[in-house]
């Protein structure tokens, strides 16, 4: 079979996108709803599809905008920002989970990959990400009318080994061969560098939904050589949302005696309002909360931009340290940065731009940061460029090459719990190091090695990557065996280890026990429904998908008149919906996937206002606590975001 296209995917905390190279230009592929951004939200449908053959149920999930709607109605069946949980251990995510409406499966144990309880089912973070990736894959396949099996996926530059491996696992579960993991800031530089093949030093400041990265690159003759990178994988727009959310919830509790934290749906409704306030404050000097409360009171609060800026100052300040360190590691001063590229939705905030200007002395030098490309899309566009480079079939990218670095030093735990560094951070990858080990006791046949990632002096303060047991060492006097262990960080930033006993010439066995992560067998068992991966009958698959989508929307329209929002529609609107419904009912019998899809889109458009009305109704009903009895009591301590400012200062 001829090799298909390689797509570029930005698997984001808040939104995900898929893009490809159209000629010499990267383009984002829109979803079924015609929108480029697919919200990284996954909802478990209320009614699972039975699988008669196995006597069980197949989870049916929705991804993206439709899943986001479910967030307020059935928050216990929805998960978002799952990227924050990728590649992390149970004990690491406890704090994080307090900010989310979803929670861990009751039987989660330390040492295994944590699973999230959604309705009656449990999912690991890579599985959730796989659903998002599968949606993007399907969007691309629809777009090309051809199977897509290979992709480049972007990750935050500061992602560690486990987070990278988890992302690769998710790709495999979604039926995608991940040709390369590319660092997000580097991808952004590629997108910008495409039409300006010149030399210079570029800084990419990437503040996304949940992660922050800074990368400094040297660009010359089409070679993008990363000099240094730094960041924080838990810092982003989410943190700003949480600050606003905490203020609203605290004030509602204090001033109106209503504790909305008891009701996850209401918390999500307030979060939605908080995000709107944040977005408005990027262009307006003032924004307001106006929320109707269960007891009939209204929570009204004006937030001037100045107050907002004071509030988020500590969050933004956390980006300063990584930027300075990246400059030091690259051995340059701010004045030596020729261009700054802004990436990520949070860089729309004027205070962020101000900070970047000060960090790199831009205005003082008559420079402005690059914002020409949409900051939400630029990473996906860059991923498409890298995909094109890997496909190796295009003139426009044949001169381009990306030389990236490892963000964290690799070390081995030595005597006394200290770390012996074997590969320094900011080393160009692939990179390798060879170490020699021996035994401490006569006749010893095993040597244990603990590999860590991080910059701290003590292994306990670094991130544990894996423990290796070198087995089958021939029994010799202590200190006599000479075991050569080779550590290799590949172009994806993932570690590989091989070992050899040199005196006897035997290949030492290694059993790699990753500290965090799924085994190969586990990943294998989590591969999403097999029919999705069968390339044999692609046309049939497209048809089945198109029909499934048609059925989903038809079922929703069938139930529509029961919803109070239906009464708010005009007669014309109802007629339009009925016409579109009848049309789709007729077309869906045909074998024409494209026609079914088009009819589905028409019905989707016709019901758009109805969906909005329903959403508003859901928000206010959630806030009025009408479904209070369904609230999970375990969420009592739901939101504990730091509260940077006393409520009184908002008056």
């Amino acid at each position, binding site marked *: 079979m001829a090799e298909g296209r390689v797509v570029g995917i930005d698997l984001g905390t808040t939104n995900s996108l898929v893009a490809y190279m159209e000629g010499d230009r990267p383009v984002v592929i829109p979803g079924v709803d015609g929108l480029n951004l697919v919200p990284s939200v996954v909802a478990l449908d209320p009614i699972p599809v039975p699988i008669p053959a196995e006597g069980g149920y197949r989870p049916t999930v929705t991804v993206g905008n439709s899943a986001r709607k479910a967030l307020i109605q059935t928050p216990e069946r929805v998960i978002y920002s799952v990227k924050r949980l990728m590649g992390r251990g149970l004990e690491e995510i406890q704090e994080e989970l307090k900010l989310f409406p979803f929670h861990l499966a009751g039987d989660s144990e330390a040492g295994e990959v944590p699973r999230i309880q959604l309705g009656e089912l449990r999912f690991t973070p890579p599985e959730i990400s796989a659903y998002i990736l599968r949606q993007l894959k399907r969007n691309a396949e629809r777009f090309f009318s051809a199977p897509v099996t290979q992709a480049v996926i972007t990750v935050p530059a500061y992602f560690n080994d486990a987070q990278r491996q988890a992302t690769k696992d998710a790709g495999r579960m979604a039926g995608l061969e991940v*040709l390369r993991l590319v660092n997000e800031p580097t991808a952004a530089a590629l997108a910008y560098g495409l039409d300006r093949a010149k030399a210079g030093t570029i800084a990419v400041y990437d503040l996304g939904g949940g992660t922050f990265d800074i990368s400094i690159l040297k660009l010359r003759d089409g070679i993008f050589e990363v000099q240094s990178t730094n960041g924080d994988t838990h810092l982003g727009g989410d943190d700003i949302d949480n600050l606003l959310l905490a203020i609203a919830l605290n004030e509602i509790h204090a001033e109106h005696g209503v504790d909305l934290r008891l009701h996850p749906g209401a918390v999500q409704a307030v979060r939605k309002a908080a995000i709107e306030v944040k977005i408005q404050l990027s262009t307006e000097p003032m924004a307001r909360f106006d929320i109707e409360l269960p007891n009939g009171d209204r929570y009204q609060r004006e937030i001037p931009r100045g107050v907002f800026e004071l509030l988020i100052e500590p969050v933004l300040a956390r980006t300063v340290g990584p930027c300075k360190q990246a400059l030091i590691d690259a051995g340059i001063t701010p004045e030596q940065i020729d261009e700054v590229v802004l990436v990520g939705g949070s860089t729309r905030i004027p205070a962020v731009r101000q900070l970047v200007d000060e960090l790199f002395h831009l205005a003082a030098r008559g420079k402005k940061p690059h914002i020409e490309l949409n900051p939400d899309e630029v990473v996906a566009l860059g991923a498409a460029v890298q995909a094109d480079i890997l496909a190796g079939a295009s003139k426009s990218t044949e001169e381009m090459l990306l030389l990236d670095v490892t963000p964290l030093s690799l070390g081995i735990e030595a005597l006394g719990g*200290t770390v*012996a560094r074997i590969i320094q951070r900011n080393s160009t990858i*692939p990179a390798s190091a060879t170490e020699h080990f021996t035994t401490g006791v006569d006749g010893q046949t095993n040597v244990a090695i603990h590999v860590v990632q991080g910059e701290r002096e003590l292994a306990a303060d670094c991130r544990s990557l894996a423990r290796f047991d070198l087995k089958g060492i021939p029994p010799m006097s202590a200190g006599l065996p000479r075991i050569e262990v080779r550590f290799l960080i590949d172009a994806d930033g993932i570690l590989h280890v091989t070992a050899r006993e040199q005196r006897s010439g035997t290949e030492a066995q290694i059993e790699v026990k990753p500290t965090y992560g799924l085994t190969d067998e586990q990943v294998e068992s989590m591969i999403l429904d097999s029919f999705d991966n069968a390339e044999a009958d692609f046309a049939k698959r497209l048809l089945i998908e198109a029909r499934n989508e048609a059925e989903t929307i038809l079922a929703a329209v069938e139930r529509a008149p029961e919803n109070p929002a239906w009464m708010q529609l005009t007669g014309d609107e109802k007629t339009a919906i009925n016409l579109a419904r009848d049309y789709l009912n007729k077309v869906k019998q045909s074998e024409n996937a494209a026609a079914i899809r088009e009819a589905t889109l028409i019905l989707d458009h016709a019901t758009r206002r109805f969906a909005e009305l329903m959403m508003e109704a859901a928000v206010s009903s959630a806030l009025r606590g009408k479904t209070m009895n369904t609230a999970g009591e375990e969420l009592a301590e739901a939101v504990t975001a730091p509260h940077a400012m006393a409520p009184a200062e908002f008056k």
Partner: protein
Amino acid sequence: MLKVIDSAVPIACWSCSIGHNDSTLFCPHCSKIQPPPGGDYFSVFGLEPKLNLDLPALEHEFHRLSRKLHPDRFARAQENEKQWSLADTALLNDAYRTLKDPLRRTEYLLKLLGAEIGPETSPAHSGKDRKDPSRVPTDLLEEVFELNMQLEEMRAARESGETDAQFEASLTQAKEKYHVLLEAVDEDLRAEWEAWDSGGAAARAAAQRRMVALLDRRRYLSNLVRDVNEVLGA
């Protein structure tokens, strides 16, 4: 003496079966990528071991080889070529990282020549006190002793929340002095590079010994600067 770079026995190219010299990254006949060659870091760039290197030329060659070897160029190649691309590029990157930095380059060459440099960094040996008194440069013995006393007192003062401006000033002064000493070491090292690069066997052997001593001294001085910085909270 130096490791023999060129193997006398040619090995056969996996693709075209024509024998070639084992230090090559690509088959000279069919241009296919080869498994990692056995030579040293200098040979990766086709260079004789030298301490004075033309850095812009080195960078240029690094870029040229990266374009040909990088795994991005082999994303859809067969599995063995993918593996060799990965291994070869790791070797290229390791070599470039080592050779572009003057100190790493010097240490590497000296190790290649069989010198024992500095405290072993291997995990099997670490835990050894980096302040091993036998490594203290004799001309600094007395001063280092006094400095360590000062550092201890300063740390103790810090812990009890006091600051002593006088101590701080004298530590800053010490730091500046060590910086000057470091620069002197670097200058001496550069002179030895010349001596080694252009010398005969005897001159090289002498230069090697001096460089090992200079590197020891340098490491000692940088550790002192680091300790002072730690205490000063810089």
